[in-house]
């Protein structure tokens, strides 16, 4: 009994000491960064890459929207909410750097009620499917305001760094001492209200004149298998259930990639089949634009080996808009929708 009570006392005192330590590391700033960020090895520079800061500064202005896009950088560089707005649709792009399904799930849990979308477009990218979600959480805990989803995210990632980040964000929010950052200008890209990030180094060029040569890697393509993290696949299912329970529709989607790029993924077909089977289980669509015919050309419509350029974005978004209409996710006559 004595041992038991001593153990309980030890644990309680430790928790208090841990909390005290976390408060100290959170409020001591080194170069406008809480010391906790150094302790957790958080490499994210506030208000820089990915534009998560302005995205989450404006998120509370959006409610009862038509479409929300979630996913990684492939999401925020692909779905141009202005194109949807010009068709009378209120859209918000909640994509963030390295966002895995685990991160998307807890972000949706935190913001779905407020955004109250009709349709959720969930961009699935194989690149983030073997990650644990810590990279994305580092970005969110640095650039997004504290929200209740942080705890779930931190515990599910299962890394003490994530938990320390979550508790630090909570403490700073509680003490109203969250550092105030401003978004830096970034060469060649710009944030647009609604969450889309545009490559600006193309704006002065006409599509007809633009041609980007594709360079094959020296030594040829070396296909490699990408092992999917089973837990991330489980979060896709949880997202579908969450969105459905909210009464919204959901579409799983993989945006087009240069076909040459897919040559390096030895098991792309398997990955696509895995995504399709999850969608089929919940009777929702999965549109893999790498398997659907489209007019996008590697040399003309891509910024680099991963992302579309603004010409490609325009074409692809028009295509997606049409497909969402024809498949009944959006009204046929958009002008009457509002």
């Amino acid at each position, binding site marked *: 009994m004595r041992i038991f009570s001593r153990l309980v006392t030890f644990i309680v*005192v430790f928790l208090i*000491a841990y909390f005290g*330590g976390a408060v100290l590391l959170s409020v001591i700033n080194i170069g406008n960064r809480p010391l906790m960020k*150094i302790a957790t090895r958080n490499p994210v520079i506030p208000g820089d890459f990915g534009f998560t800061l302005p995205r989450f500064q404006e998120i509370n202005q959006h409610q009862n929207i038509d479409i929300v896009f979630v996913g990684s950088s492939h999401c925020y560089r692909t779905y141009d909410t202005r194109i949807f707005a010009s068709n009378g649709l209120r859209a918000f792009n909640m994509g963030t750097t390295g966002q895995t399904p685990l991160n998307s799930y807890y972000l949706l849990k935190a913001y779905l009620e407020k955004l109250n979308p009709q349709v959720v477009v969930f961009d699935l990218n194989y690149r983030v499917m073997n990650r644990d979600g810590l990279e994305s959480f580092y970005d969110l805990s640095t650039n997004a305001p504290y929200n209740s989803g942080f705890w779930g995210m931190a515990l599910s990632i299962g890394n*003490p*760094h994530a938990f320390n980040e979550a508790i630090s964000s909570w403490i700073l929010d509680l003490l109203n001492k969250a550092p105030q950052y401003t978004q830096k200008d970034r060469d060649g890209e710009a944030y647009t209200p609604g969450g889309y990030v545009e490559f600006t180094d193309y704006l002065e060029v006409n599509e007809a004149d633009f041609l980007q040569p594709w360079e094959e890697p020296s030594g040829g393509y070396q296909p490699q298998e990408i092992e999917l993290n089973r837990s991330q696949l489980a979060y896709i299912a949880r997202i579908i259930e969450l969105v459905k329970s909210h009464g919204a529709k959901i579409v799983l989607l993989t945006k087009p990639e240069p076909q040459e790029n897919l040559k390096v993924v030895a098991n792309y077909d398997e990955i696509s089949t895995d995504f399709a089977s999850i969608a089929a289980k919940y009777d929702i669509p999965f549109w893999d634009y790498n398997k659907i015919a489209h007019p996008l050309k590697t040399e003309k419509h891509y910024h680099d080996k991963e992302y579309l350029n603004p010409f490609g974005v325009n074409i692809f978004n028009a295509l997606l808009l049409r497909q969402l209409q024809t498949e009944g996710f959006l009204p046929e006559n958009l002008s009457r929708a509002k």
Partner: protein
Amino acid sequence: MLFNSFEFTLFFPIVVFTFFLLPHRFRWAFLLGASYYFYMCWKAEYLVLIIISTLIDYFAGIQMGKISEQAKRKKYLYLSLLANLGILFSFKYANFFSESMRIALQQFNIFYEMPLFDWLLPVGISFYTFQSLSYSIDVYRGEKTPEHHLGKFALYVAFFPQLVAGPIERSVRLLPQFDKPVSFDYDRVVSGLRLMLWGFFKKLVIADRVAIYVNEAYNHPAEYQGLVLIIATYFFAVQIYCDFSGYSDIAIGAARVMGYDLMTNFRQPYFSRSISEFWRRWHISLSTWFKDYLYIPLGGNRVDKYRWYFNLFMVFLISGLWHGANWTFVFWGALHGFYLVFAIVSTNFRDSLAKLSGLASLPWLRNALKVFVTYHLVWFAWIFFRANSIGDAFLIIERMLMLDFSGDALGNISLALGTGEFLIALAFIAFMEMVHLFQTRISLQQWFTARPLYFRWLVYYTLLLSITLFGVFSRSEFIYFQF
């Protein structure tokens, strides 16, 4: 399963709790099951190798026990040697020798593609084969009676705290402990947990943090020079000590919690005054293994002096090869062998020099100098141990000499760690070294347990908070797993 994993934080308390709930007669079976599960979490199929090694050595031991004449026992010893070294060679060295042979033949314009095996190096193979071998040799020599209980012998080979990275236990020490009933002893459990805490601190707070710096510099040696490479090598000396001694502390502590004593593996080795002392304080279980089963059978120092030098050199060459199938390890071992032989050859000269310079009359200064020189000899050898190739090692040495004290160079000295983390790393290393210095003067264990409760708890909280708030949780493996 890694000690520094979330799985282990669940596994260990469950094992300890169940262990103490079970009656003594079932404990060996439970621990054996837990140990096999521990290993299978890494790669289940490689458990077969442990079982093969166990069965062969068990059989060889029993057979040797039936024969009184040592000469007739030899064939069973050979069986054990062949099986264990065969497994070790096939899985660890076959590709290395194949590749080295191919390169050697190329020098004579003979182009021959040697077969390469596409299999993973089984974790801890060098440790459990050596542990199992020591049993066979001890039984052969008549220093140990054969173990008739197959289950307990299997537990001796696979006991999870020391299965994958030692300490390499001797059967005469560990096997009898499995027969002895153990009851829950609060003080012993606390002492074991304390040692584990210290081990986790060294691994997670220091080793894994400085590893970031070391990896960056050593994986791109052509991009760095001077101070960065020098600091990276100092950091590697810290990293390998904290990583390996941290693992040993966790292993010894985990076994102690359950009532088993494993041998001490490190005794502040960087305070050694000579290379031979260093090897009496670094990876003690391996050094004594080589001494008992290789150096002494070769004749030790009871031979003529040239043969003695040869014996020393060979032991360290083989010790280098034991560490890894790469010429860098062979070179590292050879370098230590050379240090030892040179130390013997130059003893008289160094003593004369000490007398001439007056150092002999200042023993504290001479000792400090000896520690400094020994440390730096070891430090220099670590370059070969850590470098990705012999070529890289020489490149690093060459680039170390390109010292640049310009503002830019000094500004970038923290490298991948960043200034904040660099300073955090230095602060924790300083703290550890203060503890080590303290340990050289007194028995820390005795001193610590005599302190009042609040002081002890303060230390526990300091270590726990350092781990939870400043630990690096990248799930990195322990360096010695690869050996």
